[in-house]
């Protein structure tokens, strides 16, 4: 118990207990007032002693809360605009509490005391609530109750790049750095709650820095901002502290880049030189900008449906954690029946992005309902040209595997209207080199590999 030996640590610890301790006086004093009123209104005499007892306990609890609150305020970081009234409200609360006790005990037989006592209790209750409210403002910010105001703040969730339709058109500070800082740091570094003297809400306030001084534009290595972000998670200096929402590696890279570029305010990413790692982030963000995978309006598929599909012999997995999208394979290859499969999968038709029916016995199939499909594997099936008609409406399809099927030239012409197609596998089908040429003219982005060993 070495920490007990050091006063600064004890005071720190007790100070940090304040948010815990304040609830005792709030609860106990409110209860005391309530019991006293109850007694007077309904003449419940038995409550008298309990109310007095509660006032005593409330007194000690408020002393304790006040003491710890004083120690906490020594840490700094709270806006004095709110802190000073909070402190005085707390002190008046104790005074009113003492007054109430004195009226109840010493002057209880005086005629005037009852009215004064009731008045004191009413004020006491008001002050308790007011003090608590100010404390809440210090901890949660003044807009905590204000729903509309929270909405007005430009809050981007998760990785901000995913919400930018054209990441490179974005402004580095306004569209990327500021939302990251707002989401991850804003709850403690805002104009109301300036922890460490640092307000990270606007460009100017960020540049002003906190207690450790303004940001030094000329020295990246001395950036306090970066140092704090990169401290180990267990370190006292680490920001955001352990237990708070952390920055992802990508977000950290972006912040580092912003610092390395000497904190630019008004510059679009297209006008900047992207270092390798940043270029990669933007390239990868295309993945997050994928028209299908980034759709976050789709609710997750019903777990019950997934379980019943698995029992029926479907391999069903979400493509990544937190994603609503599914990959589906059918395992009982010989027994596959296209109509039955379509019916089974109907409840999750919009969830399926990767669909593997390779090697199954299906012949005809209607894929039009699976409108989010990006990968479809029909290789080694009995599928023929007519089935490709339903594929021609799949605007998101990128990968289409048709090898070793009955598809012919005619079917391949259905594919020319699929703008997203990137990979087509027509090996070992009736599709001829001239069809491939035809397709390549219409889909210049697509890679079509006819294979090498199809002569036999």
């Amino acid at each position, binding site marked *: 118990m*070495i*920490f007990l030996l*050091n006063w600064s*640590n004890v005071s*720190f*610890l007790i100070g*940090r*207990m304040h948010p*815990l301790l304040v609830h005792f006086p709030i609860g106990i004093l409110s209860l005391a007032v309530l019991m006293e009123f109850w007694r007077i209104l309904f003449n419940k005499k038995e409550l008298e002693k309990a109310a007095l007892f509660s006032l005593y306990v409330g007194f000690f609890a408020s002393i304790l809360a006040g003491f710890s609150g004083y120690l906490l305020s020594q840490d700094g970081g709270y806006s004095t605009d709110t802190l000073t009234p909070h402190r005085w409200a707390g002190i008046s609360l104790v005074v009113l509490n003492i007054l109430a006790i004195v009226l109840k005990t010493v002057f209880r037989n005086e005629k005037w005391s009852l009215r004064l006592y009731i008045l004191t209790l009413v004020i006491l209750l008001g002050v308790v609530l007011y003090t608590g409210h100010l404390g809440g403002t210090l901890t949660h910010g003044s807009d905590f109750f204000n729903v509309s105001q929270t909405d007005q703040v430009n809050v981007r969730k998760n990785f901000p790049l995913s919400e930018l339709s054209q990441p490179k058109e974005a402004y580095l500070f306004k569209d990327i750095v500021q939302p990251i800082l707002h989401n991850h740091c804003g709850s403690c570094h805002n104009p109301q709650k300036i922890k460490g003297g640092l307000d990270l809400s606007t460009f100017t306030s960020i540049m002003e820095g906190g207690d450790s001084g303004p940001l030094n534009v000329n020295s990246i290595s001395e950036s306090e901002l970066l140092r704090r972000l990169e401290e180990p998670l267990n370190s*006292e200096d680490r920001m955001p*502290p*352990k*237990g708070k929402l952390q920055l992802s590696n990508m977000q950290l890279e972006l912040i580092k880049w912003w610092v390395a570029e000497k904190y630019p305010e008004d510059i679009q990413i297209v006008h900047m030189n992207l270092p*390798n*790692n940043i270029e*990669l982030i933007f390239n990868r963000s295309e*993945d997050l900008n994928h028209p299908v*995978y980034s759709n976050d309006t789709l609710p997750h598929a019903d777990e019950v449906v997934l379980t019943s599909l698995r029992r029926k012999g479907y*391999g069903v*997995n*979400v*493509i*990544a*954690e937190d*994603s609503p999208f599914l990959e589906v*394979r059918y*395992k009982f290859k010989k027994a596959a029946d296209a109509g039955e499969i379509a019916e089974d999968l109907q409840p999750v038709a919009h969830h399926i992005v990767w669909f593997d029916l*390779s*090697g199954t016995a299906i012949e005809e199939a209607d894929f039009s309902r699976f409108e989010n499909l990006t990968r479809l*594997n029909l*290789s080694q099936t009995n599928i023929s040209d007519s089935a490709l008609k339903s594929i021609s409406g799949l605007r998101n399809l990128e*990968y289409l*595997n048709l*090898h070793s099927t009955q598809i012919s030239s005619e079917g391949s012409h259905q594919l020319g209207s699929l703008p997203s197609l990137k*990979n087509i*596998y027509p*090996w*070992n089908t009736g599709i001829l080199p001239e069809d491939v040429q035809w397709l390549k003219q219409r889909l210049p982005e697509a890679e079509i*590999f*006819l*294979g*090498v*060993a*199809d*002569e*036999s």
Partner: protein
Amino acid sequence: MKVDDQRVHLCNCNMNRRHFLQKTSMGLGMFALGALFNPTSLFSKGRLTDNLKSESPHHIPKAKRVIFLFQSGGPSQHDLFDFKPFLNHMNGDELPDSVRGEQRLTGMSSFQNSFPLVGTRWSFDQYGESGAWVSELLPHTAAISDDLCFVKSVYTESINHDPAITFFQTGSESPGLPSMGSWMSYGLGSENENLPAFTVLISRGSGRPKDQPLFSRLWGNGFLPSLHQGVQLRAGEDPVLYLNDPDGLNRMSRRNMISALKDLNQLHVSEFENSEITSHIQQYELAYNMQTSVPEVTDLSDEPESVFELYGEEARKPGTYAANCLMARRLAERDVRFIQLYHMGWDQHDNIPRQLPQQCKDVDKASAGLITDLKQRGLLDDTLVIWGGEFGRTAYCQGPFTEHTFGRDHHPRCFTMWFAGGGIKNGISYGKTDDFGYNVIENPVHVHDVQATIMHLLGIDHKRLTYKSQGRNFRLTDVHGEVIHDILA
């Protein structure tokens, strides 16, 4: 280093409200909650939740499966991929001390009085649109070089075979940790309940048919549930030993026996809550399914003639590298997660001019054939193929150096691997070695980086896939590893 007393003291006193609450209220709460979640740890006799169930990937994967063409013994990068005209020029001259630096040597060449540099005996040329340098020893690989990504700056920690292969497979030189394939099986689960998610195929090299031995612990599951260990498919009658029923036992009896055994084991699970029993139940089921699936997958009679033209005639001979490559494609088609090949015999300490061409002949056509075959079947798109050994070979000669012969010793400081398929940028060469081909001078890639990259492509964050054993969480990449983003498509 000066120890700052004040800081040490502060560290010792590091208890604040957060820690305090965590250690007291949360600690006790979590203790109770933990008991609810994990009935084995406390007094409860409730049923153990199935902790073997696969998780979903951390991010959207680029590859769904891996074929690792492990070239065991250490292929000579100087004679295959890492072309050094300067080394040819310096042929016979002494290796400068400044290049060797503090590099340790193996006991096999450290006693040599002289370390003459030796250039390659084979001609190199640039191939494809990418202009990759490949030796004449690998004509088929050269022909598909636009589909490959050559990484010339891989380096490792170990200088001898077993620790180096163990390091590559398990992330640690000391044996006993789970193999890469076991980690993938544990992290991603199986997509085919009839075949093991981690399958191993071994072939012997013609260059040095007797060396180096491999140990089955290289594909062991370590502390992971034993369901995730690699299963070796052998050549010949019995691809998996003791898998077939003995004479006189029909399949129905076997089924009844396994069902009864399962019931008995379930009784034990409910009593002892040992996850290894659950693992055994699943293994019995898998083995039963494999009684039909393994003969099916190893039967090449449904493969057309054109396939053997592609992989080479050798592919008809079970147990050859070519046959294993073909098997790898068949396993990939059946969604086996991690297919690990080992081709032995790359350990050319002497007589490279005789041994190396034979080794290359073993693997060249089949490796290239595998890539082409995967590509035409649309499998290369989501299959990651890796070719490489546990380390490289020295720029200097080991043993007799004559006009007809020379050898090269183990060299961990740099070697070449190639990658292809799922999520890899093809048609590039990454990383550079110096003019001697001795040290990496640009974009070094550590073995842990390779592992992190493989996991990344499969949708796994290598820092997040952990397993607690002996009181701490383990990772394949230990506390190291950076994803090589530059080689990702």
